[in-house]
């Protein structure tokens, strides 16, 4: 209702496009759905945050959880279209240092799916 998740795939990469509000209430939905998609065998993950109008530290937790899973399995995870406000949260949490963040989904895909 308050968060929509759209997924797409290309090769071994799962693309997750989030729109709406990512908080504690909606975090479980993201976790469950992304995990289910990854279980189908995708190696890399690109999360598009262009239409995400709100996110708090619950969102950071979900992203960190997916990052751990993807990288533990040898994959890469990146974010794209992250607005200034969300960027502040990633900076504060130190996640900027480990996550790759790209301006567009195209750039993220180009960098994530290839070696």
């Amino acid at each position, binding site marked *: 209702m308050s968060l929509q998740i759209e997924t797409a795939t290309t090769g071994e990469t799962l693309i997750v496009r989030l729109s709406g509000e990512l908080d504690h209430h909606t975090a479980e939905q993201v976790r469950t759905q992304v995990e289910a998609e990854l279980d189908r065998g995708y190696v890399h993950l690109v999360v598009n945050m262009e239409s995400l109008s709100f996110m708090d*530290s619950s969102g950071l937790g979900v992203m960190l*959880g997916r990052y751990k899973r993807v990288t533990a399995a040898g994959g890469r995870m990146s974010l794209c279209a992250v607005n200034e*406000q969300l960027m502040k949260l990633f900076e*504060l949490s130190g996640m900027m240092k480990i996550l790759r963040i790209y301006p567009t989904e195209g750039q993220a895909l180009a960098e994530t799916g290839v070696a």
Partner: protein
Amino acid sequence: MAEMKPEINNYMELKFASRSENESFARVAVAAFVSQLDPTMEQLTEIKTVVSEAVTNAIIHGYENGEGLVLVTCRLQEGTMELTIEDQGRGIEDIEEARQPLFTSKPELERSGMGFTIMENFMDEIEVSTAPGTGTRVRVVKYLKNPSVARH
């Protein structure tokens, strides 16, 4: 921008059930109330984020996802917003530890441990009163109108 407006002194309280659906209700309600001070979009987003963090803490940690009531108050005075978020839940045993960046008592729930750090960064003042078995009250202040005061 230099237009003089009548001084705004206003107050409101919200009391709601400790349910995760109410996290968005609380931040949207506070943002709507604070709008009368003409905050910037950035300030409004920071306020919404802080309300969300504190209310989420009350629900997850204060009431451990059980029954309870969360009280949010907001006072607007002389360009300043004072917000309190209060629960009567289990309280925090070690507040210094709880306020450390990345500390979480519930890593199994994929909590990032960034709630207090975000509140500290987005607000100008923060004060946490808590006692085990009694509950937790977070009071934050943000200066919205006076940049010389806001930069401390």
